[in-house]
């Protein structure tokens, strides 16, 4: 299932550890994500999946360990630098700019790839006007790409739940990521919305973006991911093809408890 370019790792995490007081949220987690694959991160609630996301995107600094992304060392970088390097993310609890329109939300995503500063904004030079047009048209294309172009002018908070999730994806794509990290993209979606989401994620992968997703929906993970890693109590307990992981005794124990294993 791994595409031909699979050998070169896009993201390499080496023995990442993160503690919150006495709680070890991540204990020496290592991961390697290949270019062009869809990599799933699963595990019971509180296993450390979102913490790993937050460390990876610069929201938390890890206590130990190293990240390299596309040949660059990312460990401890500020979130905006991580985004500039090509990692974009969505949030488990949707974090849109609630009172900005859907289009403006995506336009903010273009910030990191555009230049205009105060003089450009005040003088509105030809270069700035061209850049603004590019930002708006690209944002509109992305809304269309995720299927909510008709909602462009609506404030983000007024969108249906599924549309908010799509908008978050469009906003993340606007930063031109090499890796798109999605934190539970299917949470709260019905079966139809999930099927549409699956198609959207496959299209994104086909366009050359590598995907990392945290997901609880087993069917979605099994149907979509090339490889998955399983976290439990901050440790990686399994990694591999979805089917193999599904039958791994350690994974079954983590999910169902010791008595059944």
């Amino acid at each position, binding site marked *: 299932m791994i595409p031909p370019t699979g050998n070169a790792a896009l993201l390499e995490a080496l023995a990442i550890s993160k503690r919150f007081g006495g709680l070890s949220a991540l204990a020496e987690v290592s991961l390697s994500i290949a270019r062009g694959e869809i990599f799933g991160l699963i595990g019971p609630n509180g296993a450390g999946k979102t913490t790993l996301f937050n460390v990876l995107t610069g929201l938390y600094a890890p206590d130990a360990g190293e990240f390299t992304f596309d040949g660059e060392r990312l460990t401890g970088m500020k979130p*905006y630098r991580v*985004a500039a390097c090509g990692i974009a993310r969505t949030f488990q609890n949707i974090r849109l700019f609630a009172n900005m329109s859907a289009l403006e939300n995506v336009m903010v995503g273009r910030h990191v790839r555009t230049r205009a500063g105060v003089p450009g904004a005040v003088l509105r030079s030809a270069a700035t006007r061209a850049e603004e047009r590019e930002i708006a048209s690209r944002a509109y294309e992305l809304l269309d790409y995720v299927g909510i172009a008709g909602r462009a002018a609506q404030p983000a908070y007024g969108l249906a739940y599924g549309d908010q999730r799509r908008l978050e994806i469009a906003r993340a794509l606007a930063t031109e990521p090499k890796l798109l990290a999605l934190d539970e993209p299917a949470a709260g979606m019905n079966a139809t919305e999930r099927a549409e989401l699956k198609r959207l994620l496959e299209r994104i992968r086909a366009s050359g973006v590598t995907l990392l997703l945290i997901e609880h929906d087993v069917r979605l993970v099994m149907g979509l991911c090339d490889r998955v890693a399983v976290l439990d109590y901050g440790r990686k307990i399994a990694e591999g093809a979805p089917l193999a992981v599904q039958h791994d005794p350690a994974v079954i124990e983590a999910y169902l408890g010791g008595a059944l294993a």
Partner: protein
Amino acid sequence: MYLFSERWQKLRRDPRLVWAATIALALLLVALPFVTDWAVGRTWVRIAAFVLLYIMLALGLNIVVGYAGLLDLGYVAFFAVGAYFYALLASPHFDLHLPFWLLLPAGAAFACVFGVLLGAPTLRLRGDYLAIVTLGFGEIIRIFLLNLNAPINITNGPQGVNLIDPIRLGGLSLAQTHTVLGFTFPAVYNYYYLFLALAFAVIFVSVRLEDSRIGRAWAAIREDEVAAAAMGINTRDVKLLAFAMGASFGGVSGGLFAGFQGFVSPESFTILESIMILCMVVLGGMGHIPGVVLGAVLLVVLPEALRYLGPLQQVLFGRVLADPADLRLLVFGLALILVMLLRPSGLWPSALRRRELAAGGGAAADGRA
């Protein structure tokens, strides 16, 4: 109501009407000093000039509070920095008399530096904590101005700086009466026109900034700082930029104030001034330029107009029942409370802010459940 609003929308788009309204407004603003002087006296021309000064200040604070969502309770510090910058470099105090065209941009830049100085230590703070630190900053500046008269006399302490040079544009002194085409322009008229021009410049810059890459970045950090950072916005730089831009407007207003008054002292830059400017922004409609302008107009004019409560009582009751000085502040306070109760998002809020407050917790609950 619906029909009315639809018709109104149509009218608003009619270019002829827009032009007519613009020309009417321009004529009104140009004729204002003459009309005011004739109708209610020269004091009110002076008040009109102060209205324009406060519009500039309120729009400066609006960048920080309205656009970037950073609560700043010490904004008057930048006004003070601009005023003293002009006062010290264009007065007999140091016997320096630098020209206005140089001092205006230099004062703006100088205030910018102070904006960054205030911004830098507050980057990690939000809401109440940020407000307290900015409050302290405002007081520190005032107390410095009050005490920097020893061992070396820099600010002349509580006496303030006197005999500040009036503003001169080229060879034209604004402090003198000029006659052009049979119209007489006393000093206060000249200052009114200069302030009017600069207020329009400040409005122009505000409008342009709001609808730009920088303006969107400010709105994004106001809405959700974590998400903004994750989308690649350098929150540190963008916040400092907001403080610096806001401060520069304050610096310009300060220089104008010093030239206009001819005298500055620390007394003019108390915490109450910061609160008043913040009230203009909040009362008018945070982040919405017409609202902020309206807020500034009302909060300068209303306290002045309430001075007539004394004469009014005389006319109505034949004698003064309550001391107008006490009554004035009481009525002013009541008016503020009423406005905030009846129009919590300001008198003239932007469509966006209105949504924000109308939806209130609902939006947050939807998005962040």
